[in-house]
């Protein structure tokens, strides 16, 4: 499986059929500027596609992380609570936010592939 992208600038990496890792894209990270705080959901929380699951605070402002898929949160990257700058340094890798067990894997098909996402941010 390749990495998929949402219109809210998250990446969704499907590790298994129903298990995904979610983070924000490099484009999003650049738009936000220096991050100073990340508020993560709790392990065990349910998330619903389109709803806010996390808050990302940059020097400038607070922005919401919108769930790109639905499911239950099985792991959060708690390193971000003390070192939000990891997102700036490596948004697609070490700076991941959450791991989600999908309730509806078909939602992945609604996301963009890399080519479509690159075209989307060009607009």
């Amino acid at each position, binding site marked *: 499986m390749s990495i998929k992208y949402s219109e809210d600038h998250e990446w969704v990496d499907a590790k298994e059929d129903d298990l995904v890792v979610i983070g924000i894209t490099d484009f999003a990270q650049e738009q936000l500027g220096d991050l*100073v705080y990340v508020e993560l959901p709790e392990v065990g929380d349910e998330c619903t596609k389109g709803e806010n699951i996390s808050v990302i605070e940059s020097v400038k402002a607070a922005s919401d992380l919108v769930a790109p898929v639905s499911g239950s949160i099985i792991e959060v990257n708690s390193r971000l609570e003390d070192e939000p700058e990891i997102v700036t340094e490596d948004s697609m890798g070490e700076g991941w936010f959450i791991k989600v067990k999908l309730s509806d894997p078909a939602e992945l098909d609604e996301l963009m592939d890399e080519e479509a996402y690159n075209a989307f941010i060009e607009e």
Partner: protein
Amino acid sequence: MSIGSEIRITPFHQMHVDAGAKMVPFAGYEMPVSYPLGIKKEHNHTRERAGLFDVSHMGQIRLSGEHAMSALESLVPVDIIDLPLMKTRYALFTSENGGVLDDLMVTNLGDNTLFLVVNAACKYDDYEHLKRHLGSSCELDLHDDLALLALQGPKANKVLSELAPSVKEMTFMTAKQVMINEIDCFITRSGYTGEDGFEISVSNQDAESLADILLSSEEVEWIGLGARDSLRLEAGLSLYGHELDTNHSPVESSLNWALSKVRRLGEEREGNYLGDNIILKQLENGSDTKVVGLLPEGRMPVRDGAIIQDENGTQVGYVTSGGFGPTLNKPISIARLETKVSNSQSKLFALVREKKIAVEIIKLPFVKHNYYRG
């Protein structure tokens, strides 16, 4: 003076774009919010070396006439008549109800002429206010032909005095007319970052050349509005529209220090400005609200608008400015609180996204001022 709805640019606009700035609309102008360095590094650069800010959107107003100094005193609770030649003073335009219309810097140029620097968002209203009250006795000029740069930071003096040696002797809140590579510059040793530094007024034609000269020093980087705000916040300085507004008097905004002694109750030139009876009464008896610094617990920024509650969950105030202080590497806020809870013993909480964050009241500024007083 007409206020077009179209967005305006400053003489440095092309330089900002060429420097890779992120441009945003601000007070009717397209202004740089940050450069590729990013807000945090821009902030730190200003605290450690020297930052160059385009503040040309601010209003520069010349006020002259035989009675210009006493005339301006009728609009500000500040001593202007005795403002020495080429000295700069912080002042506030008050309203009939004692509120604050704007804050400003006033410099005495001599020859019954004052030079005012006012906030960008208020400049046309300030001009109309001056015209309405002083128009018959004074000449007024809102300078669209001048640009304004701020050079701020511990290396600002070194950079500028290499170009104009006489600025070295200037102390905080004094002014001087100097030439830099044959460019006429009107300089005040002032700024709004808490650091030593200068504001340089220059003609629009010479603006880019002057910026080029300053930027040729390896100490100097362009700094955007984002870092300007975090620097101002750490320095605990009031910002119009946040700590200052038309609904609160200078006393209610903890700006008693800016109200000159000679204009106070029982003094030689007591009152005689708009809203004087309300402000003088508050100076004697105290006010219902105060503006204080807050240190939130943890790392979550508590931004403006956040409600402040006491232990019982009763609202006792709100945050007027808040964010992250890069120098302190923690969140900091300024809040308007009911006076009765504004002492450091109060146990207070900020509400952020329905979470309660404990906040500690601390004395402003958050980062000590580094002004050069000689």
